[in-house]
């Protein structure tokens, strides 16, 4: 809520004027029954035509002024709602981009997306409606009651009974049905899951010939949903008839009291009509108010979810500035006793890792799934901060580097190749916005994808969102090209050739070795064949460095390395020879 007010404050003028004009409009509406009473008593009663005409013109005039007020109010409300949500969304986007990897891991991308889209939209509707109605509805309800008292206090007492009774009916039904609706929503989620599951698993389901059973299971699941819906339906269908009965019963009571007072000359028929009209106004407003409250509670929940993101302050502030000059003779990358524990994790993902790589060397990192390979390379561009130990890049502690300057010198191709909608050129430009076509083509060539891209139309070939128009191997190669194009000092390939066949993989590795700008290369792989030629190989097992050295050294000294190597080569050695 607080966050919301923060952005709403910028539209203070609009958010005050909106409801204010809405109130003025409501006030005019409340006068209408009085005018009608005046027409009946003053005009018809006395036969004064001129007076009648004048009063009717007032009706039109009030209508017109009401229209003007209302339009002004709608405009201000819309402006405040749209404006504050737009600002909030913009700020949220910027805020998210400052969050560190560990923050993002905790939050998860899909929630961030829903919060930016549907939650924000919900808030906008909520703010807009609230500014328009929140003051108006209670004002009309109580205003109508007060007006009724000014007309005739004893008759107006009916209102003091009716309003609480109506409120209980409207809000009671609302409160009772809300938890049921939540249950319905949950059941519906289950139904959605069933549909999705059956589509993604179509091959398996058909392979096992389970089509009929799955259909039956779905039918049962949906039947449960329908049964629950019926229950909610029965309850919420009560709202309209119940309020109808209450209001009409109140009108009968009102007319009864009115009749007594008219009979004894304390009240005119016109006044009775006015009271009758106020009664109808209350009902309309109360129903609107109930709707509004539903929307509001939803919006408040959504605003709360957005605020939660704002409250996650970045655990690693972004900094920019000139890169420190490299210390002569210092290793390109140096880890000493580095450990990392992900937030919320019970155990270290990386424990006490020390190694160093000289500029221009090739570093291989091998190990099983979950052994900490990706974690290790993610520390190099400071995507995470080590929980213990120090990392030095070019001799400088990593936190002495401005983060942006550090990342500019590193090209990383992630395990899961991520591409963006646009052209091949746009994607490569992400690596280096000033790169020439020639430079891009060189990168494509080194990544062994030049031919394929040329076939697809060269640098201007389109890339769909998520790169869905490319195969897995093509995506990987393109993301490698994107890393190369920025001519980084450190090139990180995080298992980025797993979808490639061995021949292409080998050719790519060779090309990377031959790059003219001689980067320090870190290759992560599960294939021993991909790393055998590295200057230094790190062997990771459950987050620990269990061996480092060249291929030959490791075969001698490292049991885990031998095991990995054997599992990939030995059988062939035995069988093939």
């Amino acid at each position, binding site marked *: 809520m607080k966050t919301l007010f923060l952005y709403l404050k910028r539209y203070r003028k609009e958010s005050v004027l909106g409801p204010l004009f809405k109130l003025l*409009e409501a006030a005019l509406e409340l006068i209408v029954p009085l005018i*009608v009473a005046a*027409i009946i008593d003053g005009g*018809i009663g006395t036969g004064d*035509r001129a007076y*009648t*005409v004048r009063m*009717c013109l007032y*009706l039109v005039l009030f209508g*017109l002024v009401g*229209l003007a007020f209302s339009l002004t109010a*709608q405009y201000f409300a*819309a402006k405040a709602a*749209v404006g504050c949500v737009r600002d909030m969304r*913009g700020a949220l*986007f910027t805020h*998210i*981009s400052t969050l560190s990897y560990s923050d*993002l891991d905790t939050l998860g*991308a899909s929630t*961030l*997306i829903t919060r*930016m889209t549907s939650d924000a939209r919900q808030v906008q509707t909520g703010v807009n409606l609230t500014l328009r109605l929140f003051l108006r509805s209670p004002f009309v309800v109580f205003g109508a009651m007060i007006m009724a008292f000014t007309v005739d206090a004893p008759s107006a007492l009916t209102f003091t009974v009716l309003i609480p009774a109506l409120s209980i009916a409207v809000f009671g039904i609302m409160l009772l049905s809300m938890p049921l609706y939540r249950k319905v929503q949950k059941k519906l989620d289950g139904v959605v*899951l069933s549909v999705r599951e059956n*589509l*993604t698993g179509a091959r*398996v389901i058909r*392979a096992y010939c389970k*089509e009929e059973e799955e259909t039956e299971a*779905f039918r049962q699941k949906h039947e449960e*949903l329908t049964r629950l819906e019926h229950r909610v339906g029965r309850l*919420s269908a009560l709202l*309209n008839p*119940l309020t*109808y009965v209450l209001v009409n*019963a109140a009108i*009968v009571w009102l007319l009864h009291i009115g*009749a007594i007072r*008219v009979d*004894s*000359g304390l009240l005119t028929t016109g006044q*009775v009509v006015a009271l009758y009209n106020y009664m109808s106004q209350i009902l309309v407003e109360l129903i609107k108010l109930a709707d509004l409250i539903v929307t509001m509670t939803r919006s408040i929940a959504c605003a709360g979810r957005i605020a939660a993101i704002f409250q996650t302050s970045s655990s690693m502030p972004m900094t920019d500035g000139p890169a420190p000059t490299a210390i002569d003779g210092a290793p390109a990358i140096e880890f000493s006793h580095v450990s990392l524990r992900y937030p919320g994790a019970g155990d270290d993902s990386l424990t006490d890792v020390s190694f160093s790589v000289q500029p221009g060397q090739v570093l291989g990192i091998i190990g099983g*799934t*979950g052994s900490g390979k990706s974690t290790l390379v993610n520390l190099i561009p400071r995507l995470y901060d080590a929980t213990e130990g120090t990392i030095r890049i070019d001799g400088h502690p990593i936190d002495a580097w401005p983060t942006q300057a550090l*990342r500019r010198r590193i090209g990383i191709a992630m395990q899961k190749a991520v591409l*963006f909608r646009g052209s091949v050129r746009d994607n490569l430009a992400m*690596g280096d*916005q000033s790169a020439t076509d020639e430079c891009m083509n060189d990168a494509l060539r080194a990544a062994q994808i030049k031919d394929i891209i040329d076939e697809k139309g060269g640098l201007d070939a389109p890339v769909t969102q998520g790169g869905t128009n490319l195969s*897995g191997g093509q995506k990987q190669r393109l993301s490698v090209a994107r890393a190369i194009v920025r001519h980084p000092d450190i090139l990180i390939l995080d298992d980025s050739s797993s979808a*490639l066949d061995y*021949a292409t993989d080998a050719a790519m590795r060779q090309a990377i070795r031959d790059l003219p700008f001689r980067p320090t290369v870190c290759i992560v*792989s*599960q294939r021993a*064949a991909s790393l055998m030629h590295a200057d230094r190989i790190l062997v990771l097992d459950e987050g620990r460095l269990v061996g480092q050295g060249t*291929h030959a050294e490791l075969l001698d000294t490292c049991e885990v390395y031998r095991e990995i190597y054997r*599992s990939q*080569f*030995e*059988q062939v050695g035995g069988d*093939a020879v």
Partner: protein
Amino acid sequence: MKTTKNPLRKRTWGHIFHHLKPHAPLVILSVLCALGTTVLALYVPLLFGQAIDLMTEGATDWTALGSLFLRILLLVGITAVLRWCMEFINRRITYLVTRDIRTEVFAHTEHLPLSYLDAHPTGETVSRVITDTDTFAEGLLLGFTQMFTGLLTIVGTFICMLTIRVEIALLVALLTPLSLFIARFIATRTHSLFRRQAQTQGEQTACIDEMIGQIKTVKAYGYEASACDTFREVNTRLGDVSLKATFFSSLVNPTTRFVNSVIYAAVALSGALLTITSVGSSVPFTIGSLTALLAYVNQYTKPFNEISGVIAEFQNALTSADRVFALKDEPTEPITHAKDAHLTDVRGDVTLDDVRFFYRPERPLIEHLCLSVKAGEHIAIVGPTGCGKTTLINLLMRFYDVKGGAIRIDGVDIRDVSRADVRTKYGMVLQDTWLKHASVLENLRYGRPEATEEEVMEAARIVHAHGFITRMKDGYATVLDEGGGQLSAGQKQLLAIARTLICRPTMLILDEATSSIDTRTEAYVSEAFDLLMKGRTSFLVAHRLSTVVGADCILVMRDGNIIEQGTHAELMEKGGFYRTLYNSQFAHIASITSASDVEECK
């Protein structure tokens, strides 16, 4: 446009009536209730008018007033009951129709050819089954009743006004088009604004989806600033169009309200003047009549606002209905077999006879593929990524039918028997393992629900899955997340292998794991694979050279074609693509270490 759209619409209507038919009694009941409530709701104000007329200073007819009140209360009670019935019945119809359509469409998707499922994103189909069905049922049914009561109210109030005073009723009728005209004017304006808003919203969502969805890559490249700029641009545009759309759409109510208040004033004026002139005439126009008339005017103008909204919703609902029923009208997998043809006691001989296949006619994939597999033989399929290995699996399992030639099992053309018959003969383990949102036990038993718990555990033990299963929260009873989220890819594959093992198929189709599994789990998986394959006709998409080398026949695929075919020795001798492929992977072993070196390391 119209001509292409009409046949679809016509079919849609056909479907709609088809789905409403079973609920015809409810629909009729609902219409009757609507009729009742509307008429009564119109009649009650008339009685209130009469009641007001009965009040006169000192000369109130109390007995008449009392009986009038009783009548009103009675009618109000009846109206309320009818109204509750109507609302309840309407909801009921909506829920039932939604249920019927969803179940039917769901059942239908189970029989759609895989070519359809492969070509359409899952999300889109899900949204058709869930969201579109909802939009359709709610929009059409609730919209229909709203429209019905709305029209009824308009006609009813008009008749009532006519009975009270013809001139005033006509005056109202004359002024109504004004309100309609204004509402229409605004609606058309806002419609295009809303379309633009939706469009920009779509753009923004795509931008968010991409940038936030992949924020890690964005950050790794220090691309945040550019991403923020891109977003800001879309965000500003959305803000602008959204302001316009919100504001203009909010014009309808105040404006029509104003027109209504003009009509109200006109009626008040003419009514009042009439009352004054009619004083003392034989048919006096009473204050009660005026009150009733004013109440009717209010009721009369209200539905006009609603109906324009309902019409828009109606359009929406029909568009959704088109989408749902288009899915429903997709042809299912054709049945090609004779009723009594069956595959029984299959030995496992598979022959591919001059098989031809393509996904798109302009891109032939498989041409003249001949292959003869004896029972128990192992066929390895190798080739670079994306060479069409899975296509072959699709054909063997009859996920797709061949476009030419034939595939035979034990000499029987697989198109001459049912798909189920073919598929149950195979056990299939795919690289991308699919698991159900159900317990581990249920997943393992998926192919053979009658398998005992002992059998299941035995199978799990064989494939080295028993250990990690028992370590899970509830052991075998642990319910897996959607897609088996809490398991690693390797563990999922082990479960899939156990699942296959439990149903004891005659033949196998296996897609070996690649890089997503660590080497130790991979060793387990390979072991399990070998065990599974023993004595069974097997087709493997192979990544391990040991499987390849030991296979009875190797199919080398490239760009969708089988370019080489033979045993390892034959292919090596031939010196073609296979040899290049093989050497690229093992050149290093030859240069650095020989097989005996590895022996020494032991």
